[in-house]
């Protein structure tokens, strides 16, 4: 696949279709892959990588990149195309300046999951028939591939690209994922249990803003949390309230816009399952206002910018689940 992508990129660069390519660049280790822009065939040959660790969603970079002169080739996984579509819908990217090549999705691996097994000194990771052979300073270790995949890939919602100019590989399908299982599990807890769960999670927040800064829905020119005039600006989780406030408002601001790409949880240094907040909104929207998948198209009305006269009343919250 990596070869095919490099060849495609070289071809498109050569024939002038695109001027730049956004993809992923090899790191020091097996897993520390960085999104990068390539401009020449040499760079691509040398550093372009596409493997089990190229999980990063590069759509958000296109907000900036698509406004530059010339056209950029973006390799988008199915989940990334949803983000891209949503950005197009919100006029945040210039569609004409992006040439999208759809590439197969994950599952991608999570180095943190390998490390959590106590495996240290990782020198190389190989996938042999869905068993990971991990070469370490302390000898070779193995673990099942599926135990090391990213959470976001474990609950993949779709292997189908919703936008592309060209595809490499076969098109997949929308999956019947079990992505709401955890949300449901929490809904079935008592309020006290839910409170304790979230206090435990959110108290870990160091307010590094990685979740926000990586989020393709968070592309505000100025975030309310950075704006001294917004009344909610803050830099540090100075009180448990601040942690709640930040995450509630962030989730609310992306409600109906979040495509469930899972990047927030992937990048959280504290492993807070932030995607659950977004998924709760998605689940509510689906069940209360009809199935809606942000990013599926570029024309539909976002659920929060829409209404029906016979929408349920807010009391629906009181009427269901566990108190």
């Amino acid at each position, binding site marked *: 696949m990596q070869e095919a992508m490099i060849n495609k990129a070289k071809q498109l660069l050569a024939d002038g279709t695109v001027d730049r390519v956004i993809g992923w660049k090899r*790191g*020091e*280790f097996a*897993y*520390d*892959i*960085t*999104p*990068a*822009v390539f401009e020449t065939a040499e760079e691509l040959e040398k550093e372009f990588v596409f493997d089990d660790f190229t999980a*990063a969603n590069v759509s958000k*970079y296109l907000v900036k990149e698509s406004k530059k002169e010339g056209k950029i080739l973006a390799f988008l996984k199915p989940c990334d195309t949803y983000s891209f579509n949503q950005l197009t819908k919100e006029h945040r990217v210039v569609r004409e300046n992006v040439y999208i090549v759809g590439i197969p999705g994950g599952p991608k691996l999570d*180095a*943190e999951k390998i*490390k*959590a*097994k*106590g495996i*240290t*000194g*990782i*020198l190389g990771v190989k996938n042999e028939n869905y068993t990971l052979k991990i070469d*370490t*300073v*302390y000898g070779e270790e193995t673990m099942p591939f599926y135990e090391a995949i990213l959470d976001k890939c474990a609950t993949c919602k779709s292997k189908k690209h919703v936008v592309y100019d060209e595809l490499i590989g076969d098109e997949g399908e929308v999956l019947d994922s079990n992505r709401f299982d955890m949300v449901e599990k929490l809904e079935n807890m008592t309020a006290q249990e839910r409170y304790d769960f979230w206090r435990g999670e959110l108290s870990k927040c*160091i*307010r*590094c*803003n*990685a979740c*926000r*800064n*990586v989020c393709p829905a968070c592309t505000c020119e100025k975030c309310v949390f*950075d704006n001294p005039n917004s009344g909610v600006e*803050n*830099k*540090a*989780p*100075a009180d448990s309230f601040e942690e709640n406030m930040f995450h509630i408002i962030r989730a609310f601001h992306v409600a109906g816009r979040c495509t469930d790409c899972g990047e927030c949880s*992937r*990048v959280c*240094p*504290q*492993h807070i399952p932030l995607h659950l907040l977004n998924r709760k909104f998605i689940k509510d929207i689906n069940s209360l206002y009809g199935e809606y998948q942000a990013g599926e198209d570029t024309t539909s009305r976002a659920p929060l910018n829409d209404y029906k006269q016979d929408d349920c009343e807010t009391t629906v919250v009181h009427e269901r689940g566990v108190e």
Partner: protein
Amino acid sequence: MLKISLDKLDKLFEAISASQTLYIPVDREDGAAEYKKYENGMKLSSALNTLRSAKDFFFPQTENLVDFKMEGQNIEVIDVREESEDFVIFGVRACDARSFTILDKVFLAEPVDSYYKNRRDHGTVVTMACTRPTETCFCGTFGIDAAAPEGDAACYSDGESLFIEAHNEKGQKFIDSISSLLEDGDTAKLEAVRAKTREILKKLPLANLTTDNFGGDKLNEYFNSDKWGELSESCLGCGTCTFVCPTCQCYDIKDFNTGHGIKRFRCWDSCMYSDFTKMAHGNPRLTQLERFRQRFMHKLVYFPANNNGEFGCVGCGRCLAKCPISMNIVKVMKALEVK
């Protein structure tokens, strides 16, 4: 050297925590380790290092500096400082231990930061030698020996016993307070373990990374390097690297109106943030390139320039593991290096 059997660690912790607050690294459900206030029954984490650095003990993410009461035209200043209680941080790794001396150079320089000093004076750092360094470790680059950590007192494990020795008076006082649990031990096996650790350290992928080409005199070589654009291109401008970094100490001072007074607090800030240097009429670091450059120039050039060549990095590897887009000081050093 004095030692205690590893299976008696509980006793040791109980004894320490009886007289002062004890913090030890413990495992969290998600596999990460974090410092927790010791309570009976807690188990010392076997992880190499804690997810957050140990700097929190002396330089917490937020702290209240001073309170104000406003009444008409008048302002009352309320000093909220209190003498810290004595505490012990146990199990600090060599890299984090070194970070304290780096933070000291900032906070204990004149004028001394009394908030930091207060906690530093009351905290005893008990370090723990590494036996299982990992691929992201590069403390050796900064002359740190993971098998011989600094700190007020240091501990070493040979797999059976925990050996402990004092590095200064504070450390000695600590050892004295638990001496009844300790016995003299033979260090032969320990020395073998340490030698093995040092062998592993040499085999790590970053073992050959050196600071030879960095330092206070390298401003011109690196500041205008054309590499910064490429390196910073994918930086998200989040604060993860700075917040997990044991030596990053930039802070912001903010006021919070509680409705019945003003709390002035300081909190960690990040030079990676777009508003870090923003003023009413402009920003000297306009793009992520400048902000990204600042962080690494500070650690590799500016800090050594002011501190006799000491670098502002201890090679703990947290940023290597945690950066959402895996851009880090090692990649920067390798890309920039002019030999």
